[in-house]
């Protein structure tokens, strides 16, 4: 059986940041991710990120992933792609399933002193009549098809949800040759960043605000979608319906943290709508109610790649310190990361997340959740 100081589950920006910092502090680190390549969501992002230089602004998502993967390898992290963590046994052993070879799927066990969960989030659905027809899929699924496999999910596409995911995926599918017939959102204004919305507006893509998908119709797959305006309770208003002929409907209606493994470890959870729903409670050190389990990134509240990276780094430093690694410089590093997170969580889009995060930290204090002091 394999042993390491720290096991990191999930190789997105959160997991990569955590693995890099823990390895730099001197801990032995194993990083597993179920995909053929590390990078998580970053690997599908072909657009240039914006923000600050420390968060790789101006670089494309997959380039940021490559930079982080190289940094992790240099720091001595053992990278295990195509490996899925299936959970743990009572004795504290982790079961890891290799997906590399279908004929020889292998289950291996390992033990670690601390575990950092960076499992990200999964996409939400909306159950309108007809949502189970072929042609209805989540926006992330369409993005994987187009940007990883080079396959267009459809030719005439309607998108439900005007957050960044809906806007970015819509624009990328247009670049790939699909026709985007519109973005529909129940909210009265666009939910995502204006920069992304502007690209679609310039291409004359209609944005139907205060509206929703009422129904998808088709024989063997989607052929038509009925959209309609909604009232104050988000219920469709009779007589406002219109029909759009399309072959694909993408659902971009938010993400939920992937909490299964955290739940298996008995980490206390709470429901925080502003951060994606059910999520594990954590303190400033990213430690959960189970002192051996740390969380970061979208699992610890759905935010962005930059916040996931910083939170991951924090989790890595603290988990390594709990194992006895790291020097005095770590205190300054922790302070710098915390102030960076503070800056990222500001402005119109960031402020509500900052407030929600503060509520989580306070809840952790009330419940007596404290990571080991270092």
């Amino acid at each position: 059986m394999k042993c390491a100081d720290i096991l990191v589950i999930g190789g997105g920006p959160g997991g990569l940041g955590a693995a890099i910092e823990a390895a730099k502090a001197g801990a032995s680190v194993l990083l597993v991710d179920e995909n053929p390549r590390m990078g998580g969501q970053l690997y599908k992002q072909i657009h240039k990120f914006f923000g600050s230089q420390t968060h790789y602004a101006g670089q494309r998502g997959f380039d940021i992933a490559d930079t982080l993967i190289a940094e992790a390898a240099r720091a001595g992290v053992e990278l295990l792609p195509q490996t899925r963590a299936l959970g743990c046994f009572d004795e504290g052993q982790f079961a890891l399933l290799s997906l590399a070879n279908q004929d020889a799927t292998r289950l291996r066990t390992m033990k670690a002193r601390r575990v950092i969960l960076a499992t990200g989030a999964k996409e939400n659905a909306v159950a309108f009549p007809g949502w189970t027809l072929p042609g209805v899929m989540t926006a992330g699924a369409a993005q994987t098809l187009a940007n990883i496999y080079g396959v267009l999910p459809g030719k005439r596409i309607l998108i439900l949800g005007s957050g960044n995911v809906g806007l970015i995926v819509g624009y990328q599918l247009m670049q790939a040759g699909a026709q985007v017939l519109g973005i529909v959102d129940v909210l009265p204004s666009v939910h995502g960043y204006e920069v992304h919305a502007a690209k679609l507006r310039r291409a004359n893509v209609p944005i139907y605000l205060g509206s929703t998908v009422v129904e998808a119709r088709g024989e063997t797959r989607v052929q038509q979608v009925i959209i309609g305006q909604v009232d104050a309770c988000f219920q469709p208003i009779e007589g406002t319906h219109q029909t759009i002929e399309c072959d694909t409907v993408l659902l971009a209606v938010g993400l939920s943290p992937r909490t299964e493994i955290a739940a298996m470890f008995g980490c206390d959870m709470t429901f925080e709508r502003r951060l994606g729903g059910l999520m594990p409670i954590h303190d400033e050190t990213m430690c959960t109610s189970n002192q051996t389990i740390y969380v970061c990134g979208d699992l610890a509240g759905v935010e962005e790649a930059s916040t996931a990276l910083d939170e991951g780094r924090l989790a890595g430093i603290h988990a390594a310190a709990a194992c006895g690694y790291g020097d005095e410089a770590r205190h300054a590093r922790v302070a710098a990361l915390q102030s960076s997170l503070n800056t990222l969580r500001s402005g119109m889009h960031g402020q509500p997340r900052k407030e929600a995060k503060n509520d989580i930290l306070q809840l952790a204090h009330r419940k007596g959740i404290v990571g080991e002091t270092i």
Partner: protein
Amino acid sequence: MTQQEHTAPITDPIICRCEEIRKSEILQAIEMGCRSVTAIKKYTRAGMGVCQGRTCARLIEQILIASGISPQAAVARDKARFPIVPCPISAFNGSDKEDQVDAPSI
């Protein structure tokens, strides 16, 4: 498109695809007193299929909240069990490799 076609009867959408449980069955379960994702699961089997509620748990949560149940009560779920994602039974085959585990009783 005529007005007639627009107002075609609204069908009752499936919420749990694995177990083919429809929205009306979820609403009926709430009427019978179910107050959480886990109660609905036990009453209707929604979320008991191969994917273990990966998509429908969140949908059921929304239906519960829309019915006036508090989010903190609605989200109650069964503890996730091993394996968290379906995997081939061959993965549990004991073998000569020393780092493979014996098949645990599932």
